């Protein structure tokens, strides 16, 4: 076993024996996950919330087949929650759409259907547009068909009437969005990965405090070996803590971690490495006691901005931009993409950022250690 591995192994062993660290890194996130996951379950719904869909329609259909087809469509839509308002007049109807009281305005007659939507970008606009465009195309086709061949027009309108709606609901997995427990399992795991920053301020400082620095530095152990061993040990043990939290949430709370465990673990591990590096650098940049205090404050701010306590991803403006400064935000965002949208490339950016920043902070620590006489 090389001296670096010996140091790493000692670090892992003594950390596992430290009850406080054990409580902070495992019991605390599990307790938080339990409390927040159950308490805020109402705030997480896998169903998207929609505004009420109201459509104003100007009807003037005399041909029986077309009216039957329209009535069938109107009824089918009403069953799916669409409110129909009739015959307000064109000007009032268009004003209603502009002012947002109605999602769309339809002018239905024997010559076809003309529709006006508000194009606000809301999800209900897209739904209405999808529903209508399919029906309107077929309705207009039937109108055109009647002019050329009444028989063909009949066949088309009969087909239209037979369907309550031409929209077929289908989904690969309608439940693939995080519930409260899924969210907090993920948020607590990334939070605890960042907590490694607090415990890592003591990695080398602790040797000075225990006076073991003289014994270590009088042995053939080099500063570089000590440094590598400390970073390696702290990264491995903190990753292990995160893994325990992940596995606990997976098997006890059945949190959804998707199917790409390797990528998720790689992302969490690079976040742990970044946290260890920040903590280590803080040990050199700040005085003995203040480094811990600074790290406690930093972890709380980073946790809050990263959405560890409440999801802040929907917040816009300055605070919304501020959330992107938190490594937890990068990690949480990427993990949602990986777990729920199978977009593995989402991991590239946070992993690269984590590694680059970790390299910077490790460099600061290594230079400080090298310059210092002793540790």
């Amino acid at each position, binding site marked *: 076993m090389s001296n670096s591995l010996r140091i790493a192994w*000692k670090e892992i062993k003594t950390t596992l024996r430290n009850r406080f660290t054990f409580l902070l890194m495992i019991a605390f996130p599990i307790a938080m996950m339990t409390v927040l996951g159950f308490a805020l379950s109402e705030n997480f719904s896998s169903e998207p919330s929609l505004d009420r869909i109201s459509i104003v329609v100007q009807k003037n259909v005399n041909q029986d087949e077309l009216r039957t087809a329209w009535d069938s469509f109107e009824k089918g839509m009403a069953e799916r929650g669409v409110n129909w308002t009739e015959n307000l007049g064109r000007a009032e109807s268009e004003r209603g759409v502009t002012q947002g009281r109605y999602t769309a305005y339809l002018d239905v007659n024997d010559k076809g259907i003309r529709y006006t939507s508000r194009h606000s970008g809301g999800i209900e606009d897209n739904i209405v547009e999808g529903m209508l465009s399919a029906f309107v195309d077929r309705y207009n086709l039937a109108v055109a068909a009647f002019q050329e061949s009444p028989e063909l027009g009949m066949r088309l309108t009969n087909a239209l009437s037979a369907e309550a709606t031409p929209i077929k609901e289908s989904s690969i997995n309608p439940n693939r969005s995080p519930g409260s427990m899924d969210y907090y399992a993920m948020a607590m795991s990334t939070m605890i990965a960042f907590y490694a920053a607090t415990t890592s301020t003591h990695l080398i400082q602790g040797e000075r405090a225990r006076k073991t620095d003289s014994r270590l530095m009088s042995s053939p152990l080099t500063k570089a070996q000590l440094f590598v061993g400390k970073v390696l040990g702290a990264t491995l043990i903190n990753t292990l803590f995160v893994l325990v939290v992940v596995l606990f949430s997976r098997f006890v709370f059945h949190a959804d971690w998707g199917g790409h465990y390797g990528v998720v673990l790689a992302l969490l591990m690079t976040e742990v490495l970044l946290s260890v590096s920040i903590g280590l650098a803080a040990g050199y940049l700040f005085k003995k006691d203040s480094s811990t205090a600074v790290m406690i404050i930093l972890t709380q701010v980073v946790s809050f901005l990263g959405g560890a306590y409440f999801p802040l991803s929907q917040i816009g403006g300055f605070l919304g931009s501020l959330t992107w400064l938190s490594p937890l935000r990068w990690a949480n965002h990427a993990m949602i993409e990986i777990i729920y949208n199978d977009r593995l490339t989402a991991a590239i950016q946070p992993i690269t950022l984590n590694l680059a920043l970790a390299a910077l902070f490790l460099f600061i620590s290594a230079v400080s250690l090298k310059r210092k006489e002793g540790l």
Partner: protein
Amino acid sequence: MNILEIENLTKKFGDFVAVDQMNLTVRKGEIFGFLGANGAGKSTTINMVASLLQITRGEIRLNGRNIEKNRTYAKMNTGIVPQELAIYEDMTAYENVSFFTGLYGLRGALLKERTEEALEFVGLGDRMKAMPKTFSGGMKRRLNIACAIAHRPELIIMDEPTVGIDPQSRNYILKSVRKLGELGSTIIYTTHYMEEAEELCTRIAIVDHGKIIAEGSAEQLKATITDSKEIWIGLKLETEPNLGKLKELPGITAVHLEDQTLKIISKAEVNNLNLILQQLMEDHIEIRSVDEKAPNLETVFLTLTGRNLRD
């Protein structure tokens, strides 16, 4: 044959000169006492020998090899028992010794054998699996020693290994040091207890203001002050005696007050006892006893430095 040679050694911290062109040799197999008051420069010297501090100027050679140019060799052949306990409270006694010894490249069965041997040597063979937090102060000190000797260094540096422990543990440690010496180890031993140095050390160096001011065996050092005598006067102190006036009396070279005892070093040929007592009476100080002591290491130290070793 010399195991350690220190030549013109200087260490500066900014403008402060902690060690000033020190020259010293330690012979193979001897227990070498290194005495000095706090701030005299002995810890700085020891830390440079143990490769913990960089040398500003001069040279240290271990077995003839410059330790700066042969860092690994020097470290492999040196063991340090720091003044402060340097052990992990959350690792067992065995794990502590094994961990530190492993850093010297020992592995497997040999590491196990040396670890157990060192723990047996310091009398902790039956407490190998116990955590140091369950140990007494003396047991922790013994573990501190075991961590330094398990890799069998040629040179062992012991910095005040008996500070703050019970007499029984102290005796055990002194016995262990003597035994290590008998087994051929070379030991540099610093202490505040003169009787320890006198009892253990084959040679002693007294360091003051970063320089060696005297060197030799206890007997040789004591012989340097045959023209001095030490007078101990027991007092009942209610007011501070005027030490300045006492120092002005003829023949007096040093005056030191320790608790209720006034320790005065004076030239042997000067009969000044009456003058000393008269001065104390003038200061309205009650005298309880008067005793003239044969010179010991403490007298030597006080004479040479004007300070008590525990100052």
